[in-house]
């Protein structure tokens, strides 16, 4: 297994290089940040001077080589807007995003998993239908709308929870619920369907025929096997979540990475966009690796190659 992990880690560097290459050319094509930095009265000469300061007057090839050189030293430069080191800006925002994502994920698992389990157990009964309906609702409801509704109910009407911002655990509740809802519904649905598939599988029937108790069959044989796809999906979800839940972060004024990236793209603040993409790519690659390892541990049919 260590060999496998080692080999996977070796691929990280070229993957990152590829990502950074794409990011460079994408940022290069979406336009000129100098125009956005100067006031509207600025003359073309003013714009040209700012371009020169930002190094944007150089040929693309020169800019690209400089960029690669900087990245190799983990130097992403400073934000065009705040003059702060781009990497610091991103790293500063990571804890908030991690906190929100993990809490949302835990909520989603704590509710979604049992919901899926009971749905499978009570298949076709009223409870299952009710659960399925709620799941459909949870999956379909748009994040921003749910967030606003929660704000109106718990923040404005009942005055139980803070409306926006961060700082106390109470601030975390509404955004975490908003973010968890969609995920929770997906987990519940996946668990239910996978379990139903597995419960009909031959090996489960064999286990039952051998006289193994229902509980043991359910936990050891069915659940363990049903979880593999759930974990794969969860891993991907977590990767995406760490990229920042842009909508949820914006609604609740949560100071996470997602908002920073969105704002930086709007402003053409390339150093920050590049630093953020780099960090996110690293996180995503590592999350995927962890998911693969966990899946292989759960399911001996998956072999490390």
């Amino acid at each position, binding site marked *: 297994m260590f060999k496998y992990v080692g080999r996977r880690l070796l691929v990280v560097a070229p993957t990152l290089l590829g990502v950074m290459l794409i990011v460079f050319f994408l940022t290069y094509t979406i336009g000129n940040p100098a125009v*956005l930095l100067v006031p509207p009265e*600025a003359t073309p000469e003013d714009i040209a001077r700012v371009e020169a300061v930002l190094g944007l007057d150089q040929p693309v090839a020169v800019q690209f080589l400089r960029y690669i050189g900087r990245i190799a030293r983990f130097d992403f430069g400073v934000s065009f807007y705040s003059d702060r080191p781009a990497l610091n800006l991103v790293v500063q925002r990571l804890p*908030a995003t991690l906190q929100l994502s993990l809490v949302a994920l835990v909520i989603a698992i704590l509710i979604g998993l049992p919901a899926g389990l009971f749905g499978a157990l009570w298949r076709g009964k009223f409870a299952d239908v009710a659960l399925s309906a709620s799941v459909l609702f949870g999956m379909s409801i748009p994040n921003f709308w749910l967030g606003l509704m929660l704000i109106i109910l718990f923040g404005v009407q009942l005055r139980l929870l803070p409306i926006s911002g961060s700082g106390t655990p109470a601030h975390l509740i509404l955004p975490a619920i908003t973010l968890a809802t969609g995920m929770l519904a997906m987990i519940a649905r996946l668990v239910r369907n996978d379990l139903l598939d597995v419960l009909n599988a031959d090996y489960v029937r064999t286990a039952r025929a051998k006289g193994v108790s229902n509980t043991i069959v359910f936990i050891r044989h069915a659940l363990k096997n049903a979880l593999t796809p759930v974990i794969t999906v969860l891993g991907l979800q977590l990767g995406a979540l760490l990229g920042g839940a842009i909508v949820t972060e914006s609604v609740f004024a949560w100071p996470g990475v997602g908002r920073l990236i969105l704002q930086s793209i709007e402003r053409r603040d390339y150093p920050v966009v590049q630093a953020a993409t780099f960090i996110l790519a690293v996180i995503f690659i590592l999350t995927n690796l962890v998911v693969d390892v966990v899946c292989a541990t759960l399911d001996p049919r998956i072999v490390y190659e």
Partner: protein
Amino acid sequence: MRISPGKLALSILLLLITGLGLAQKDIVIGADTNGEHYDPQRGLSGSAHIMMAMFDGLTRLDPDGTLRPSLAESWELVNNNTWRFTIRQGVKFHNGESLDANVVKLNIDRLITPHQTRASLGSTVTGATVVDDYTIDITTVDTDPLLPSKATGFLIGPASMEQDPDNDSTEFNRHPIGTGPFKFVEDVPGEYIRLEANPDHWNGAPEATSLTFRIIPDRSVQLAELISGGVDFIENVTPELIDLVNRSDVAHVVQTGSAISHTIVFRQDVESPLQDKRVRQAINYGVDIDTIIDNVLSGYATPLATVVLPIALGYNPDVTRYPYDPERARELLAEAGYPDGVAIEFDFTPSIGELYNTEVLQAIARQLEGVGIKLHLNSLEYGIAIQRVYGDDTVNPAFRWQWKTWYNDPDSILYGFFSTGGSASYVSYPEIDDMLHRARYNLDNEERAQIYRDLQVIIKEEAIHLPLYNLQTLYGVSDRLDWQPRVDGRLYFAQTKFRD
């Protein structure tokens, strides 16, 4: 040292009272963004409100736009190219450094260093000369009647700002120091910036003990925070929500005319039917702006005849909008050789144009369709739009734009839209260029006003734009505050009083 229980109790009581007082006089502002840069020569427009709290300019504007002394007590023209400013004595920066003419010179020199993002503000300035400790001469390329007004933007930082030889303001930006009514306390990127009152401000200490600019990107959430008392101040309340705010018992709406002119620009420098004056006039005749203002904007806008606002120097009340006359529009179109109508590519950006911009444009497109002019509306992302209009001039033949009038003077907006080479100008009229030039370098305000009045006649006759309106700005303000709006749209809290 021994403290008697009585004294201890008294000091605790005092502490509690002042503590409560502090809590009550904190003003929390819900803002879209903070701008994040607080260097007096580099700070960007997004941080303007915060800059105004921390820094003073050489001059300042009253809420109604009248020019007043600030760090400069007085100013006079000593010769055609030189303005002499007398600097206020005894002014201290937040870190205790003193203000004098040398410090002002340093700031002016720094402003006109080409790579500063705010350099265009000092584009007419050639240099500054210290006359004595409290007198400084600022020289300009040509006679600049607007220099004292522009000096409202010449924000002054302390001498210690300039320690880095590369002019890199990273360090200073982490802890900005000015002379303004509020001092920097902390900046948490993405969350808030907090300032506290400067009790030693030359113009008296503000009543508010602290200001917190909280970033709340979603405007519905800003409103939710306002009506539940979470923030004391928001911008951009929409007309249909005025009642909600006023009925909340914690906040009210303050309304004022904005200094932003909304308009539709026609390019005359690219091949299109808009090169024909009759087509441009047809468009002007074909739009019923009053109906749009009433129905789409709930009446919260004033139609404009040209981009020149009524508050601006040389506003010409005799120049009126083209009346709504679809018949005349069709005639003109036919005369221009388009009896079967024309199609025009049109660019807009939802975020340029503020309130219900997209809906307004859809209404205009519908009205123009009725006279045979088909607008193809293309929505552009903000950065792309800025790039196409100010950068590489690849914008479509007609586009939606806006411009703010500064110091109640039309110089910037007229240059921007109508001078050859102006940053949002796609026309070239030598006559207009000449008039703009004569007004810009003229010290006689009455002569300038007359030139601007004449200009508006030409701008209308040529139908260079389809002028739209200027909006009413609606602020949501906590009932605790007596806050005064400003013509320039800047948020200023140094004079804000608390209702008790």
